[in-house]
């Protein structure tokens, strides 16, 4: 079963592993029979297209689940949604031919993913603490100008710190396919962007915002909210949606 999963604000801060665990438990509670891997440590046959960063919501996470007992997509969605905690919901599901393995013999979801579309809410910090916002602070940035300047650069390097503490330098610019300002209102703005996603190269929204903040000698920019819209494959002329519209619109 190919599943499109949404992650809302109530579950924003759970990690990818948390999500996987939560899904497994929900499947068990729902009584949906999932196939297990062989060997010493059997795992449920669930494969995600891409891991979502902590703090990011989404309406387009994709995963494949290999069921050992057939069930209609409608029933699957209803039974699983009844067991999902707040913030998680199955948005759509469609049965897939399991004859050739998980993807009918084709590339796995994880292999097919190359890009992801995001909606980013950014802002210029003007509030301190949790008191109601005070007037004043730095003047609102010229968002469109800032984004244009970003796109004109060939390279902007940001430091990425891994869990173990090792620091890697990442050139953000080539990982951005597209970014545009959808709405700009004073100290806040909403951007639409397409970043690299996938196991080989991927860009997190917070890294992009750090890069933005390095322009023009240093601008004060904060990521207020990041929302992943969809995952995409790499087409000949650029990113194409990974899932066909039938699944997306359900």
């Amino acid at each position, binding site marked *: 079963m190919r599943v499109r999963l949404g992650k809302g604000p109530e579950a924003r801060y759970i990690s990818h*592993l948390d999500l996987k665990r939560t899904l497994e438990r929900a499947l068990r509670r729902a009584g949906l029979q999932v196939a297990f891997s062989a060997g010493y440590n059997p795992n449920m046959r669930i494969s995600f297209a891409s891991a979502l960063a902590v703090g990011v919501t989404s309406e387009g996470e994709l995963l494949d689940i290999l069921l050992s007992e057939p069930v209609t997509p409608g029933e699957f969605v209803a039974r699983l949604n009844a067991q999902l905690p707040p913030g998680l919901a199955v948005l759509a599901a469609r049965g897939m031919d399991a004859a050739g393995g998980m993807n009918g013999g084709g590339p796995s979801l994880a292999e097919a993913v190359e890009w992801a579309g995001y909606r980013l809410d950014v802002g210029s910090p003007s509030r301190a603490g*949790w008191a109601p916002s005070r007037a004043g602070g730095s003047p609102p940035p010229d968002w469109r100008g800032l984004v244009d300047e970003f796109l004109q650069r060939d390279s902007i390097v940001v430091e990425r710190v891994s869990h173990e503490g090792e620091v890697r330098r990442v050139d953000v610019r080539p990982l951005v396919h597209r970014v545009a300002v959808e709405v700009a209102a004073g100290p806040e703005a909403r951007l639409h962007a397409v970043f690299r996603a996938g196991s080989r190269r991927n860009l997190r929204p917070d890294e992009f915002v750090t890069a933005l903040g390095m322009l023009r000698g240093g601008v004060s920019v904060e990521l207020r909210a990041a929302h992943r819209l969809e995952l995409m494959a790499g087409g000949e002329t650029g990113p194409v949606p990974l899932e066909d519209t039938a699944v997306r619109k359900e």
Partner: protein
Amino acid sequence: MREATDREAIDSHTIDREAIREAVDRLLGRVSKPARYLGNEWNSVHKDHGSVRIRFALAFPDVYEVGMSNLGCAIIYDGINRREDALAERVYAPWVDMEAAMREQGIPLFALESHRPVREFDILGFSLPYETCYTNILNMLDLAGIPLRQAERGDGDPLVIAGGATACNAEPLAEFVDLFVLGDGEEVIQEILDAYRAWADEGRPGGRAALIARMAAIPGVYVPSYYDVSYDAEGWIERIGLNERGRRAGAAARPARRVVLDLDRVQAPTRPIVPWSEVVFDRMMVEVFRGCTRGCRFCHAGMVYRPVRERSPEKVKELARELVRNTGHQELSLVSLATNDYGGVRDVLCSLAEDLAAEGVNVSLPSLRVDAYSVGLADQVARVRKSGLTLAPEAGTQRLRDVINKGVSENDYVGALTAAYRAGWDRVKLYFMIGLPTERDEDLEGIARMAHQAVDLHRPFRGKGRKPVTVTVSVSSFVPKPHTPFQWEPQVESGELRRRQRLLGALLRHRNIRFHRNEPEVSFIEAALSRGDRRLGRVVERAWRRGCRFDAWGEQFKHGEWLAAFAEEGLDPRWYAHRCFDYEDVLPWEHIDTGIRKGFLVAEHRAALEAAAHDDCRWDRCKLCGICLDRPGVRPRLKPGDRVKRPKGPC
């Protein structure tokens, strides 16, 4: 304390709650493990605060991951929320990064489910899992904005109560806690809430003091401010007794712990909260029995949870099935102090293991007795040898094992290991203690001998696709515990403990052996607090003000600050940890009646010094510990049947 039905009061606090939620949400992006502060997990209970009469904040004084694995808390949470007139929400100690952010932004300690400030609740109840959590308790009170001292609290502050595993010797907390709950919690907590309800319904006559006086009449409740302690010139206790306030309230001269008579008659949680993130025990827990009468002389739990009360196999199976349905966990743990002694264990294990295997659920037995039978049982149910097998011989020679009354013979040990290796385990963990009474270097050599023996016994099973054996020896430092036969014994000095650790480490140097030991300093402070009297309350406060918290976490423990805290109060931690009591001395905890006779503890202590082992009263003669003597209905409850014969073979 606010009137729960006063709509205006509730509404005026909606702003606080929303503001806290928003502020916390902004913080979560930059703290470690943000999922632990969400409060919306599967099975968490969210009730409308305006719809109940009593609002209870259940606090565990350590982080979420540790607190969520505590079955006692799950039982209380479930028990309170089952009432229509009450709600319970959880509070855990925020980790240091979250605490720093909260203090910086002025966010008060909040309950997870509603994000409401803890100080707004009617009752704040702390679980007491171990002594080194005391600084966390003070820190949480401070973060909540509640006065630390019970004497400073007014009618607008929550009632602060505490109960759990170490409630029977928590004198250092006497100044900070309004009342303690001793023993089994599930019945007494209902009575406490009933008393609160009655007092609230009557219009709160007499205020806070009157409420506490009402509760003092409930068996199992201990109000520390009703007792005075006097000291002699050298600092030893002269007397602990009821004072005037206590007499007027009609409190007992010796408050006694509550004992639930029959586990089948009380509710067990069947919808435990399923965490988002990984916690210490990611599994379903069914308590198969409470209490233990093996009589290991070092064990506090074995003394204060007597007698053994089993759950019937039918009930266990019923609970297990409901838990699987309501949680979706992969592992079910049959919990007790020594699960293999459970009379119905074969029946339950075999049928559960069969039923649940089909659903992909693994049954596990966390506490294994050291013998082949028990290992055979564990083998029957473990589908996958994922982790190592844990055995706890505790001491390295038969002589010392007889001193501490850990009934494990050489045959048992060899039999258990052989059975484990034959069943496919390649990793074994062995728990030992050092610093035990009468311990000599040859007992440490005995530990090494047993470890090497564990490696050698694996040899015949090598090859055939088996991994090489890994034997992990985990050694902790003995802390003499109140209400046990060793309560009069001193802890061994840290320097000497270190020497013994080094000696052992040298003997354990081997490719297949790993050696884990703890820092003696942490055990030292634990011993001082465990054997402490009320004067240590000020030491704990100073230590907390000096930045001590999460003392049970090695990397957070600040030994220097603890020593300074003691010095500032003119007290010596070595006197507390290393002093030897005489039988006639007044012990700081002896006014608490656990139901165990002092004569029994003395007899057991004497037997220990002669290395005389005693057996379990379930199948051997009664040792007159006293728990069944004075209280109606209290006796070992074994199901099925009233007598359990020594179990023979596995199913």
